[in-house]
């Protein structure tokens, strides 16, 4: 299993040529539309910018980011389905830029399954071994073993269209595992599945990784997938790497405002443009807090900061900021309380104890306590200070 290193990888998709029998005005409109897209250069749309990263052998890395952040491009470059315009890809210190996809020993699990519809489940799973001309008698036990592991042993004679979404994705995973590739790439594999199925497959995937110890690179926009699965998370935005750390570090010490808001996005509170005095003091809801010397240095001449705090780090207490509950929502064992204080929305996450919903009602006055220990402070560029 190789270590994969990407150095200064940049990918630009050229602008689509506007040809055909259409009017000049329409042509100009389409060209302008393409050029107005975010992150373009003269040559085209930039999907990945100066990306450096190392994927250690046997690791489980999740590449996380919103749509259009360059996650899938990254996978396709590693797989050899795209060639970057700049930068190098090394598999165990060997330059792989010009190595064809079929020679890279990489498997990929696609979001839309990409099963061969004309072949049965058995044939689909056996396909990677068949193309290697491995004798049939050797293929059969391998297929049966992997089918048993992925609970597909009773579906081997079915065609893909006879399977449910979850079963289809299991077949794709089985097909990827059977030839024991050095790396398996997952391109948002569970996006088409319902919540329960996702949960089940997430658990199984974790177990499979522990059994096979193959290098897994998993791309998703779902923070829950990332936090559950990842040994390491690489956060991407607009083709630029934002953070590369363990799941706990990404959650607790986000590198910038984007990382803080993207992980735990629904319950992260950000209070913008908080003025900072010359001696490093700032006020939030009437309470005065102080920047450390290091934070003051990092802030430099800027006079404002953004203060962020997760809803899970806020508490309803006897003392604190006065607020009024606007509405509440239940997400599994959490009660999410949306309150308003000084015209600012604050989200608090309370653990359900059976009575929370009754305890907190719309229009109720509460007090919220802030613990500065959990504050995330950002300068105006969004970098953590």
């Amino acid at each position: 299993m190789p270590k994969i290193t990407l150095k200064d990888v940049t990918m630009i998709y050229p602008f689509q040529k506007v040809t055909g029998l259409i009017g000049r005005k329409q042509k100009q409109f389409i060209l302008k539309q393409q050029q107005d897209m975010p992150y373009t250069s003269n040559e085209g749309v930039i999907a990945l910018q100066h990306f450096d990263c190392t994927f250690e052998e046997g690791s489980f890395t999740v590449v996380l980011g919103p749509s259009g952040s360059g996650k899938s491009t990254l996978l396709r470059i590693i797989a050899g389905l795209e060639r970057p315009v700049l930068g190098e890809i090394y598999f165990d210190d060997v330059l792989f830029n010009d190595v064809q996809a079929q020679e890279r020993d990489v498997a990929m699990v696609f979001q839309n399954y990409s099963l061969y519809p004309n072949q049965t489940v058995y044939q689909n799973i056996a396909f990677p071994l068949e193309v290697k001309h491995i004798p049939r008698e050797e293929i059969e036990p391998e297929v049966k073993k992997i089918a048993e592991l992925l609970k597909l042993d009773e579906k081997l004679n079915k065609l893909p269209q006879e399977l449910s979404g979850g079963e289809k994705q299991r077949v794709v995973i089985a097909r990827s595992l059977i030839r024991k590739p050095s790396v398996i790439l997952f391109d948002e594999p569970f996006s088409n599945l319902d919540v329960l199925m996702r949960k089940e497959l997430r658990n199984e995937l974790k177990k499979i990784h522990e059994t096979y110890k193959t290098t897994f690179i998993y791309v998703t926009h779902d923070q829950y997938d990332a936090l559950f699965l990842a040994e390491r998370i690489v956060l991407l935005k607009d083709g630029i790497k934002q953070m590369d750390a363990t799941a706990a570090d990404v959650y607790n010490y986000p590198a910038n405002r984007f990382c803080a808001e993207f992980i735990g996005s629904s319950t992260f509170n950000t209070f913008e443009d908080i003025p900072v005095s010359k001696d490093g003091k700032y006020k939030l809801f009437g309470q005065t807090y102080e920047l450390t010397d290091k934070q003051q240095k990092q802030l430099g001449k800027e006079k404002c900061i953004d203060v962020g705090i997760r809803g899970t780090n806020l508490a309803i207490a006897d003392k604190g900021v006065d607020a009024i509950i606007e509405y509440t929502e239940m997400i599994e064992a959490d009660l999410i309380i949306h309150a308003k204080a000084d015209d600012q929305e604050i989200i608090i996450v309370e653990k359900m104890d059976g009575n929370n919903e009754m305890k907190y009602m719309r229009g109720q006055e509460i007090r919220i306590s802030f613990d500065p220990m959990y504050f995330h402070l950002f300068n105006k560029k969004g970098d953590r200070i």
Partner: protein
Amino acid sequence: MAKKKNKIQLMKGEAGFHYVSLVVMILLMIFCIVPLILMLTVSLSSEASLVKGYRFIPAQWSLDAYFFMWAKRATILRAYGLTIVVTVIGTIISLIMTSMFAYPLSRKDFKPRNVVAFILFFTMLFNGGMVASYMVWTRLFHIKDSLLAYLLPGSLMGGMNVLLVRNYFNANIPYSIIEAARLDGANDWTIYSKIMVPLSKPIMITIGLFSALGYWNNWTAGIYYINNPKLYTIQVYLKKLMDSIQFLKTTDLSNEAVLLASRSLPTESARMAVAIIALIPVLAVYPFIQKELIKGMVVGGVKG
């Protein structure tokens, strides 16, 4: 309890459209089927009764035309067999060549695909013309009086068919399947033969049928390149037969021998009988492939 009628309820506007289309389709069907019936009844009429013109119900029934065919069975069977051989081989080669040409054109990573597609499209609009083609085929490829004359000129691969198959590949086979196969270690030949072709059954059947009909009905190649009667296909035989009948009709009938020959030959009915015989395989095969054929014909019409 009264049985519920299992009938689709149509809205007011829909019902009108439904009935108008039904009438149009019935008329079209009549236009298609009437000549066929006429052909059959003429072949079953006596030659004398045809002097007054063609009739849907023969004035005088006769199997003379078929007896004449039976008498000529050796020639007709040879022509028939040859037509089947040419059609089967031609269609298979045509399908292989067309799909193999279409596959790289459907691949996004095949950079010169636009140039190749343009060259292909160019051949659909312009060609060397009949005289130049004849000279190339006879002087360079020496196909005169050989089976290749039926297979090669203008029939092996049509630009239109290639574009049809390419469009089918693009519209109906997700590109990620090809990428998955590449990552599974498959080379282009494996992807083409194990994935693309089996997944393209409707379009293969459609262009296969077009191509087969083209080979089956091809009489021009025989007229241009074949002099040896042993190499006549059924269509060429039919054409020659018609020419002979025309010859008998236009020749001065004062020659007694010719007069006798023309009287004893079932000319008009024989023409139709050969046409009926030539039609049988097409009529026999069509119902079995009709479903796939329709799927192939509406390629790109509906995206699944």
